[in-house]
């Protein structure tokens, strides 16, 4: 089966300069009862985004009209905590194609890559620069190129390269699927199982 293809984007960004954002904030457990992958975007950052009566909290970035775009930029150790893939589904379902942070939790990073959502790890300084530029101009755009592995603040020309596992890069740029790959090695699995 093929998955979503990602090669390059350039858009404005949504800044969320908070550290240690855990997957319970991204999608609280009470919204994990759905049995399909769709619709989680409605409850992305639910308790930061809406009050107890379901009204939008005006000071949360997703509710601020000046911020939009397909790139979420967040503080370090993004996606820590629970292994729920629902967190990656919620971010992608809301409309983001990439998340930028100076540090990602392991499981979240893997889940994102398995869903065509690109986690881009940048230096502390570069992250700070994105926040500064976007604070001055909410419409400032960021370019992410997976093929050549760089991220650039378009307005200032500042850019940095980022790491990505070569196998996962091939999957994302071609729409390859892990299960197809492992099943292509089925003979080896059967051999392994034979005492």
């Amino acid at each position, binding site marked *: 089966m093929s998955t979503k293809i990602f090669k390059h984007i350039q858009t404005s960004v949504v800044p969320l300069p908070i550290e240690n954002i855990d997957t319970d904030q991204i999608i609280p457990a009470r919204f994990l009862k759905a049995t399909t992958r769709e619709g989680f975007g409605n409850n992305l950052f639910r308790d930061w985004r809406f009050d107890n009566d379901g009204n939008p909290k005006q000071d949360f970035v997703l509710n601020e009209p000046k911020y939009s775009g397909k790139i979420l930029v967040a503080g370090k150790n993004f996606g820590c905590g629970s292994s729920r893939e629902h967190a990656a589904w919620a971010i992608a379902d809301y409309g983001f194609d990439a998340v930028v942070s100076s540090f990602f939790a392991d*499981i979240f990073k893997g889940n994102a890559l398995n869903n065509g959502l690109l986690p881009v790890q940048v230096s502390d300084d570069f992250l700070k620069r994105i926040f500064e530029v976007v604070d001055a101009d909410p419409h400032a755009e960021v370019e992410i190129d997976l093929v050549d592995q760089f991220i650039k603040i378009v307005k200032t020309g500042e850019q940095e390269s980022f790491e990505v596992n070569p196998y996962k890069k091939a999957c994302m740029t071609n729409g390859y699927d892990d299960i197809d790959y492992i099943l292509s090695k089925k003979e080896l699995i059967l051999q392994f199982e034979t005492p």
Partner: protein
Amino acid sequence: MGQTLFDKIWDAHVVSSNEGFPDILYIDTHFIHEVTSPQAFDGLRARGLPVFRPQQTVATADHNVPTWDQHLPIKEELSRYQVDMLTKNCAEFGIELYGLGHPFQGIVHVIGPELGITRPGGTYVCGDSHTSTHGAFGAIAFGIGTSQVEQVMATQCLLQSRPKRMKIEVNGNLQKGVGAKDIILYIISQISAAGGTGYAVEYAGDTIRALSMEGRMTICNMSIEMGARCGLIAPDETTINYVKGREFAPKGEEWDKAVAYWQTLYSDEDAEFDSVLSFKAEDIEPMITYGTNPGMGIGVTQHVPETASFEQKEQGSYKKALDYMGLHDDQQLLGKPIDYVFIGSCTNSRIEDLREVAQFVKGKHKADNVTVWVVPGSKQVQEQAIREGLDKIFDAAGFPLREPGCSACLGMNEDKIPAGKYCVSTSNRNFEGRQGPNSRTFLASPLTAAASAITGVVTDIREFLSEEVV
């Protein structure tokens, strides 16, 4: 050069290793539950694939289940639907299910070990980050996302890059009233909620060696709270004695063969780790968290850190956490009134935890301002507690013994802490809203939780212990 315990187990499970690709790692047992499996089953249907090794897949219902009147249908419609869906999927794909009403039902990380499914040298995964618990047996065990659940269902293998190796040693004698939960909360407070990211962590040292299997499971359980891929402890006599005779443990000749292999599972003396950390047991106080990640912990007599003690760029997140918790700089938690005490979760719901709490509360009664929930980790733990008469001790103390499930650890079932209320909890996460929208969590050991339930305020368990000595 020698090998680490982690590498020995990993190498024994590599099906295929290719330059530039993650390894294909064979998984001995795949645990599944109702929350992270439905989309994976749908994926298999869409591909027209069966579960490759249904007999190496074990299912239970734990996250959504009520912990009171479990014999009645689940009231909440979506929870009931998700549990029903698991039953239907397991029947369709030929997977053994320890569902509600089954004598083996319970929290997935409690039942694997107690049934003898989790064993030294094995590889275990589950769509649940606290799968790291099983590493206490000297196994590789970690949490995975739902796409990977589908992958393991389809192939009994997982694509996985080998993590770096870290050794954390704890040596020395623990103070009275300090236990496994305090050790792990202390370690995380020292290295932060991201300090283990990218590593497989082996816990070693004489303090760790002296712990029971229950204590070792508490330690490995919270490895994920410092970001580690997994945690593990080399198997020894304690491990072998725990596994022996359990329902699915090897028997007869198979047992002897297994034990001979398990005895080879340790890090060689000259094995190299990418990082080594050492802690002294004597430095560890009974611990409590004050913030909104498990790294925000202090000794129970200490004060909440000052905002100014953090780097400028961290101060915003720190203030946000204190505001959420309704706390301020330099505040002492000792003596702070609390509303709830939760004793349970995959961290602290085993029979030893319940025995320790029962022994302490015998003859005492909870404070009027506190609601206490004691939730056993499994049906077997519940039955054992009743056989030992612990339920009567709990009842007399105002600590009703409920039925098994994840309960108030994650605000997904009926057991939620109300908005604004403080809960001293033996679970593993103090994230915002984790125990219910706007609930406030102080993570602590079972003894600290029990003592706080008795006094109605955050309490230093050592005060009780010194009284008893007098």
